[in-house]
């Protein structure tokens, strides 16, 4: 093969390519489809993270559904209230207030608090560990600690503390719920951001057993229930739960009364009101 041939080859392919691309660009002008300009605007207003939490393939598909009226603008779990308002205005819809949800990790069983029951050697995934023997931490209800939740978060809003328990960055969290789905122990829940009081434990074993595996477990002593006169905390099935209907803001609260400190104020109640 001579240099000339190579040169010709390059030139020919270049010329052909140029020819076709010019043709195509002319055609794309001529054949361009008029799209509802609002569609583009809605797409721009949606978060654009294409996380799929709304059930559509991506933000564009969701925008189409909103435009058609099949979905509400607020059905995007990720969009902030400002952009939802803008979309609603754009379409002349009533603006619906939406309190932002954030993820809360309901467990304090990090490496310091939770006992170790075994050595786990295997795939470093909470789901895998959960399936074989529950991982190396002793509590069968609590965090396994391999961070499946951290891995799935599309917004970098959840990270592992040095002691191995996930921490949610409440500013970054969009409430998409991916971590909730990922956690095999179901210890992550979505709550409105203005809820700040939580019982950070899911252990429903009896007090003695719970205590023996984790120093931060709820031991269902009932002190919180008594301290609020049953109007806020209730011990159900060996676990204290907050009744958010009754437990509004004040009076705060028996957090310091809880002997294992599993009632905790999460976030900043002042700022997040």
């Amino acid at each position: 093969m001579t240099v000339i041939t190579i040169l010709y080859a390059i030139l020919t392919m270049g010329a052909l390519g140029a020819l076709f691309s010019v043709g195509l660009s002319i055609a794309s002008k001529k054949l361009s489809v008029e799209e509802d300009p609002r569609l583009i605007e809605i797409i721009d207003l949606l978060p654009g993270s294409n996380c799929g939490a709304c059930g559509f393939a991506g933000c564009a598909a969701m925008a189409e559904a909103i435009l058609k009226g099949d979905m509400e603008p607020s059905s995007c779990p990720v969009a902030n209230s400002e952009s939802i308002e803008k979309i609603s205005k754009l379409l002349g819809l009533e603006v619906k207030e939406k309190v932002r949800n954030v993820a809360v990790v309901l467990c304090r069983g990090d490496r310091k608090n939770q006992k170790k029951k075994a050595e786990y050697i295997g795939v470093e995934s909470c789901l895998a560990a959960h399936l074989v023997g529950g991982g190396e931490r002793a509590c069968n209800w609590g965090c396994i600690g391999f961070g499946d939740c951290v891995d799935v978060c599309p917004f970098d809003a959840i990270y592992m503390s040095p002691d191995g328990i996930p921490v949610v960055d409440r500013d970054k969290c969009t409430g998409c719920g991916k971590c909730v789905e990922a956690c095999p122990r179901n210890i992550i829940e979505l709550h409105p951001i203005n809820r700040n009081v939580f019982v950070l434990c899911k252990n429903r074993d009896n007090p003695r057993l719970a205590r023996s595996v984790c120093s931060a477990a709820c031991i269902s002593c009932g002190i919180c229930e008594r301290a609020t006169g049953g109007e806020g905390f209730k011990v159900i099935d060996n676990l204290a739960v907050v009744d958010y209907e009754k437990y509004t803001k004040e009076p705060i609260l028996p957090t310091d009364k809880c002997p294992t400190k599993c009632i905790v104020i999460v976030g900043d109640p002042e700022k997040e009101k």
Partner: protein
Amino acid sequence: MNLLLVFISAAVVNNYVLTYFLGLCPFVGVSKKLGPAVSMGLATTFVMTMTATVTWLIYYLVLIPLNLEFLQIVSFILVIASLVQLVEMFVRKVSKPLYDALGIYLPLITTNCAILGLALFMVLKEYNFIESIVFGFGAGAGFTLAISIMAGIREQLDIADVPEPFKGAGITMITAGCLALAFMGFAGLI
């Protein structure tokens, strides 16, 4: 007479799908309903005819004089890809429902091996310009024929009492096989 032979040979006797087993992906993918199947067939026919025309021009007017036959495949792919883009824009403009129904299969015409196969066969068989166009059109007609027959059968199969293990992909493959057997009957005609 010769042109008629070329047409029939491409459309029926050497049917791309049922004899050469080229382009099976859209053949199975878009043959659930008759409507989209026919449209897919027509889109493919258009691309095939255009491909045959343009590739003939490129091959005989550019590649041969410059001794660049080895660029055959690359340049043919270029042609096909551009044409498919064109068809895609066109379909989108003319009929959005059809565009949605064809979905991913429309861009997939690009990788439909029947089309590249057509261009390569055309060179192999040394057709002249007119014959090539007829050849491309015939191949497209054959594809449309095959995919429409298949879609018709599959629409019937939907309501037929298919034994459980054969449902879905199984019976589709069997049907395609039977069709191919039927088309083998034409072998040797031309």
